[in-house]
């Protein structure tokens, strides 16, 4: 009985860790943020830096504005 309880607790913990890990991956401002994409929510105003050929750095939005898709449909 104790063994079953322990197994259940371990299973729940593993599941929780998995959910937390997934959440962490989707929330990180990594390479899967693409201007114009709408795959997951990214806070408006988040930016990232891009290095130009001459070494200068400029800043671009991490992701499109929320109303971008509707605007594109109008076009």
């Amino acid at each position, binding site marked *: 009985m104790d063994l079953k309880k322990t197994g259940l607790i371990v299973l729940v913990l593993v599941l929780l860790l998995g959910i937390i890990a997934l959440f962490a991956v989707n929330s990180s401002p990594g*390479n*899967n*943020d*693409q*201007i*114009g*994409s709408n795959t997951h929510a990214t806070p408006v105003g988040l*930016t990232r830096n*891009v*290095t*130009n*050929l*001459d070494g*200068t750095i*400029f*800043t*671009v*939005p991490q*992701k*499109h*504005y929320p*109303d*971008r898709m509707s*605007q*594109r449909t109008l*076009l």
Partner: protein
Amino acid sequence: MILGAEDKIVMTADNSLTLWPWSNVVYRNLTHIPVLIQNAQNPNIEQLMQNKPDVVFFWTIPPDVIQKMRDAGIAVAPVAMHTKFNDTPRELQVYADVLGPYAQAKSAEYAQYFDEKLQMVVARTGSIPQEQRPTVYFAVRKPLSTTGKEESDISDMISLAGGRSVTADLSGPWGFDISMEQLLQWNPNYIIIDHCGASNLGSKPADQTLAEMANDTRFNQLKAMKNQQVYISPTGVFFWDAGSQQILQLMWLAKILHPDKFEDLDMQKEVKEFYSKFYHYNLTDDEADRILKLLPPAQTVGK
């Protein structure tokens, strides 16, 4: 478009309508989106903001325009300038870095194509001794206008194509005037003229440019004129002397300078392959020929 982001363009430049009309045939959406008036010199910032672009790709000249956009809260990606021909794929990569992973993958595809074509050319031209290389004068806009080494990779491209650029050590901005005396002193074997027909840049159509040169006794003293070695550079979706199509210009120029080494190079085939591979537009033979002859799309003639 080459980066798979055509559907993300919310505004375009007004000069795309007149300077490179092929872009309006190949980029099908360009004719349906708002146009930014006076794009290059004095763009209307309010009009730009109304279309809510996430980012604006813009020239670095004039420099104050980018600052005005940034002051208005617009993110600007300055057009990446380079003076080495080999940096062309890296220029595209900067734009891909702005757009994201899909664009980065497309940029990598382009880089592979670029390297293959570059190696094909250099394998045939790289060992040509300097003294056997023909001299080349590359003009922009008009015969007596060229570009200094600081703002162009043209001289580098000429070298890769197996030639010697007479302006390799010349300093100056893009499209500055030179004297007839200077050109007579260089007396190049070949003259290439790019940006023909760009009326708002002070350029006349190709046939008019060539006719005026032929009627000018000074030009007729040049070796290139006597030997009928004056060429007008093609313009497709953009001028060929910059941007992703410049690899086509390298092949085109190498075949002009060394036809014996590039007998198997079919530029019509190369142009068709390029447009199909990167713009997903299947040019007909006639369309490819028109691009190579600097002719506008047939459907726009007379309009």
